[in-house]
């Protein structure tokens, strides 16, 4: 992208100019940038500029064994890595016809919901950062660390867990872990009202987010927007309910709908869903059955997935996260396509949505849309 010199008009200094948001910007998770053509305070044109984060995961996966890839793919989504592992494993299991034991499915749900909560906290922090409420990031990241502690105990790693395996999960839940999880949920329940006070009732946050970046239900569907953003626009759609995978059909939870379609609705939507995640986790603790946590599969060097193609998906904190896996019956995948939920929002819809927006609303829009560059710049 070549830089244009500032267009200095004779009437007003700096009336139109080019502004880079990113690639190294604290308001964006990952190295990605928008080039904004500004007209005074207003955005006139948006050019997304991806590529700085492109690591060629899809190609790299073709060169690695089916199970070796499990160490690679969590890196596609940094705030919520487990969705990659689970979606990938579910796809492999579908192709190979592996039946996953109930206990493993419950453990997967626990991991997914914990990761979702972590990602939402990340989002709260980001919103605070975008609006200048710096207490929010401090709180959110501090609380997220408690989730990471649990992950560290369960899986051995804090951020990249590399815990799923075709056929189940690598280790069973350690003794006492579920009690600790229960305590953590108690803690989060006591914390949520505090977040409400700090963020959602805060008049400054409300002023900054209400009415910003309105997205109608129609536009949301047309532009391939999924997940909480879609629900914030009033479309009742959640893969966990509509096309349940794992054991979500055995769990009782609601799909909250805010429906206003603006930035505040999207932020609030995540706050509601966090409460639902706590509800799901509580049920998992109660319902998780005894039994094996995996079925055995052939060793990595001889693990051949029968030829075929399947699209497996999970509902992530950002929307539909899918893996299109193609196997030709070999020990390595023939092709893996990753569908990141941020793709259509940040690369396409942003070009329309941000036009006419004031410069200070841009980070708010980015954060409430939960744009996560690694999942499209993969």
């Amino acid at each position, binding site marked *: 992208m070549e830089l244009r010199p500032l267009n200095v008009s004779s009437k007003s200094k700096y009336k139109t100019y080019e502004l880079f948001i990113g690639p190294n910007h604290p308001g964006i998770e990952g190295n990605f940038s928008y080039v904004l053509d500004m007209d005074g305070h207003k955005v006139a044109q948006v050019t997304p500029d*991806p*590529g700085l984060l*492109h690591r*060629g995961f*899809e*190609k*790299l996966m073709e*060169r690695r064994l089916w199970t070796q890839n499990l160490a690679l793919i969590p890196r596609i989504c940094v705030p919520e890595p487990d969705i990659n592992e689970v979606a990938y494993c579910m796809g492999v299991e*579908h192709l190979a016809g592996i039946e996953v034991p109930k206990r493993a499915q419950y453990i997967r749900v626990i991991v997914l919901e914990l990761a979702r909560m972590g990602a939402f906290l990340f989002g709260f922090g980001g919103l605070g950062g975008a609006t200048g409420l710096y207490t929010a990031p401090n709180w959110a990241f501090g609380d997220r660390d408690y989730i990471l502690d649990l992950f560290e105990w369960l899986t051995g790693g804090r951020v990249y867990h590399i815990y799923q395996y075709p056929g189940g999960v690598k280790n069973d839940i350690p003794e006492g872990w579920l009690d600790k999880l229960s305590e953590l949920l108690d803690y989060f329940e006591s914390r949520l009202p505090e977040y409400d006070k700090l963020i959602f009732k805060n008049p400054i946050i409300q002023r900054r987010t209400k009415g910003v970046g309105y997205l109608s239900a129609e536009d949301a*569907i*047309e*532009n*391939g927007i*999924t997940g909480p953003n879609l629900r914030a626009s009033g*479309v009742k*759609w959640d893969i966990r309910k*509509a*096309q349940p995978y794992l054991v979500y059909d055995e769990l009782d939870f609601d799909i909250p709908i805010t429906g206003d379609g603006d930035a505040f609705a999207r932020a609030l939507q995540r706050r509601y869903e966090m409460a639902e995640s706590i509800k799901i986790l509580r049920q998992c603790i109660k319902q998780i059955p005894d039994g094996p946590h995996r079925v055995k599969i052939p060793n990595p060097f001889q693990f051949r997935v029968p030829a075929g*193609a*399947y*699209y497996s*998906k999970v509902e992530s904190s950002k929307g*539909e996260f*899918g893996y*299109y896996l*193609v196997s030709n019956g070999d020990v390595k995948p*023939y*092709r893996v*396509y990753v*569908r990141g939920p941020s*793709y*259509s929002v940040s*690369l*396409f*819809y942003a070009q329309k949505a941000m036009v006419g927006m004031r410069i200070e609303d841009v980070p708010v829009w980015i954060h409430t849309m939960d744009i996560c560059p690694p999942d499209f*710049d993969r």
Partner: protein
Amino acid sequence: MLDFVEKLNSMGLDAKPLGKWEFEVTVPKERVAEILSYLKSAGFRAFMGLACVDWIDDGEFELVYNLQSYGEAIQALVKTRISRVKPIMDSMMQLWELCQVYEREIHEFFGVKFVGNPNLEPFFLENWLDTPPLRKDFDTLAYSQELFEFKEDETHGIETPERIE
């Protein structure tokens, strides 16, 4: 879901259920626009993505259009094959405007030309002059070994056993 599969089969296409919530349908290149437009009107309004698979041995690229119906809770994978030698495909932008970015990406990584797409400029890559990198005939290992000092060793340092032959 079976209604759709039957309906598509009656239209002379090869459709079959894929999983619990998904079906796939293989469509000749010329009928893709027609079928996608039919599916869109039948409720598959959300466009979830476009994947490309390089079947180098068949000399074909496979494009996979991924649609979701929120009303029926069904996912549709519409597959079509195009020639690998002269990969040209119609753009689906008149159905979903957001195809623009998906097609732009596939043009960059596979070299498929989409007729009707106004912007197929380089997207993710910068100054890329080599083979489109996601094609099967692009060797990442050779590329990185040429570019960097790193050498990957298949033997991992273990000598093969001595054999008198």
